[in-house]
C-alpha cells in the first residue's frame, strides 16, 4: 500500500510529467479551458432565465421540469453523440475557444439544470412581504430584483453555480475517451495501459481541481452574500413550516 503511494509520489516528482504535450500544465490548461467556456455560456443562459422567471413568479414548473429533464440526459450519451456529429478534431473558428465541441456541449448541458433550478427557486423563495415592502419604498421592478431579491437569493443561486462547477470539472474527465486532452487523459490512459499509478495521479488531480474550484466559489460567495443574510453550512434550524422544503430542488446535480 505504502509503496503504491510512494510510486504516485515519484510520478509527481518526475520532471517529465511537468512539461510537454502530455505534461500537467498543458492538460490542466485544456481542462480549465473547456470547463470555463462551458460554465461561462451556461451562466449567461441559465441565470437571466432563472432569475427573470423567479422575479416574475412565472414559469416555475417549466424551469424546474426543464432542469429535471436536462438531468435525465446522460453526459456520456451527449458526449458520444457529439463526437459522431462534430468529430473529435479542433473545432472550427467560431468555436475555437471552447477547446472541444462535443465536450463543451455536453458540459453546458450538464451545468444548465442546477443553475436554472436554483436561480428560480432562490428568487421565488424571497418573502412576498419583503417584495411588497421594497415596492412600498418606491422601488421599480428592476430595482427590487437587483437590490432586494438577488441579494436574498444569492446563497441558493451560488449553491447551484457551485454544484454545476464541481460537476463540470469532474465530468470533463470523460473528454479523454474522445481523444481530447484535459486531466482525464491520465485517467483514461491509465485505464487502457493498466497503469494504476497514472490513473490514481489523474484522479487525484481532477479531485483536487474540483475542490479548489469549490473553495474558490465558496470564497466568492462570501464576498457576494451580504453578512446580514449569510447562512452557515450548519443544519438549518427547525422551521415553522410543515411540508416540502422547496430548497430541496437546490441539491445535487452531480454529473461526473
Amino acid at each position: 500500500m505504502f509503496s503504491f503511494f510512494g510510486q504516485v509520489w515519484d510520478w509527481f516528482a518526475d520532471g517529465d510529467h511537468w512539461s510537454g504535450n502530455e505534461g500537467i500544465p498543458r492538460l490542466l490548461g485544456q481542462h480549465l479551458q473547456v470547463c470555463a467556456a462551458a460554465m461561462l455560456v451556461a451562466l449567461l443562459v441559465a441565470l437571466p432565465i432563472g432569475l427573470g422567471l423567479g422575479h416574475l413568479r412565472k414559469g416555475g414548473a417549466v424551469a424546474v421540469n426543464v432542469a429535471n429533464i436536462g438531468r435525465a440526459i446522460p453526459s456520456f450519451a451527449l458526449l458520444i453523440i457529439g463526437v459522431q456529429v462534430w468529430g473529435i478534431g479542433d473545432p472550427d473558428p467560431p468555436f475555437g475557444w471552447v477547446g472541444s465541441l462535443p465536450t463543451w456541449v455536453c458540459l453546458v448541458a450538464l451545468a444548465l439544470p442546477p443553475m436554472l433550478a436554483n436561480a428560480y427557486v432562490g428568487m421565488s423563495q424571497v418573502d412576498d412581504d419583503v417584495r411588497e415592502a421594497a415596492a412600498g419604498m418606491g422601488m421599480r421592478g428592476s430595482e427590487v430584483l437587483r437590490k432586494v431579491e438577488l441579494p436574498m437569493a444569492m446563497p441558493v443561486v451560488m449553491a447551484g453555480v457551485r454544484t454545476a462547477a464541481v460537476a463540470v470539472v469532474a465530468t470533463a474527465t470523460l473528454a479523454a475517451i474522445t481523444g481530447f486532452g484535459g486531466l482525464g487523459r491520465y485517467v483514461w490512459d491509465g485505464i487502457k495501459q493498466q497503469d494504476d499509478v497514472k490513473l490514481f495521479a489523474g484522479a487525484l488531480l481532477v479531485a483536487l481541481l474540483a475542490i479548489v474550484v469549490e473553495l474558490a466559489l465558496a470564497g466568492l460567495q462570501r464576498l457576494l452574500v451580504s453578512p446580514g443574510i449569510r447562512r452557515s453550512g450548519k443544519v438549518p434550524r427547525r422551521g415553522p413550516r410543515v411540508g416540502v422544503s422547496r430548497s430541496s430542488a437546490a441539491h445535487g446535480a452531480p454529473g461526473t
Partner: protein
Amino acid sequence: MVRQLVTHVLAEDIGPKWLYWPWVADHYSEISSAFQEHVSLTFWAVLWGLVISLPLGIACARWRWLYVPTIAATSVLFTIPSLALFAFLIPVTGLSRATALIPLVAYTLLILVRNVVIGLAAVPSDVVEAAQGMGYSRTRSLLRVELPLAVPTIMTGVRIATVTTIGLVTITATIGQGGLGQLMFTRGFQIDFRTPVTVATLLVVAFAIAADASLLGVQRLATPWLRKQRV
C-alpha cells in the same frame, strides 16, 4: 432479390444512420437485456444508498456536530471523477458488479444524506413537542412523526439520486458493465455506428423520466395529508 439489393444499398451507409431499424429488430434481445441490467444496477445502487443514508442522516439530525464532517466527506467523494473511481476498484473487486455498484452508491450518498437531514430539521419543533407531550419516546416520535413529515424532502433526494444514477450507469460501460452504456460505448462509439447510440440514449432518457414520475407517484401516495392541503 430486390430485398438483397435494398439491404446491400442500405448497408453502404448504415454507420451514419441515426436509426437503422433492421439492426434494432435483430438485436432486440441484446437491447432488452442491457436495459434490464441498467434498471437493476440503478435499483440496487439507490436502495443501498438509502440503507446507508437514512441512519446516517438520522444520526446527523440528532447529533448536529456529525453533519459538517459527513457532508464534507460525501462532497469529496463527489469530486472524484466516476471514470477513475470505477477503474480504481478493478484491482480490488475485479470486473464484477460490485465494481460498478460501489461508486454508484457512493455518489448517491451526498444527495440522500443532505435531504434526510434537511427534511428532519424542517419538522416544526411544536410538532415534536406535541409528540413528546403525548408520551412518545424519541424513537417512536422519530418513526411515527418526524420521518413521515420529512418524506417529501427525502423523496426529492431519492428522485434526484435515481435520475443521476441512471446517467452514471452508462459510464460503467468503460469497465465492461453498464447496461445501456454498453450499447453506446462498445456497440456504437468504438466502431462508429450510430444506431445503438441513439437507441440507448432514448431508452436511458425514457427510463429516467419514467422512474422520476413513478417516484413522484409513490411520494404522493405516501403523503396523503399534503394532497388535501394542495386543493
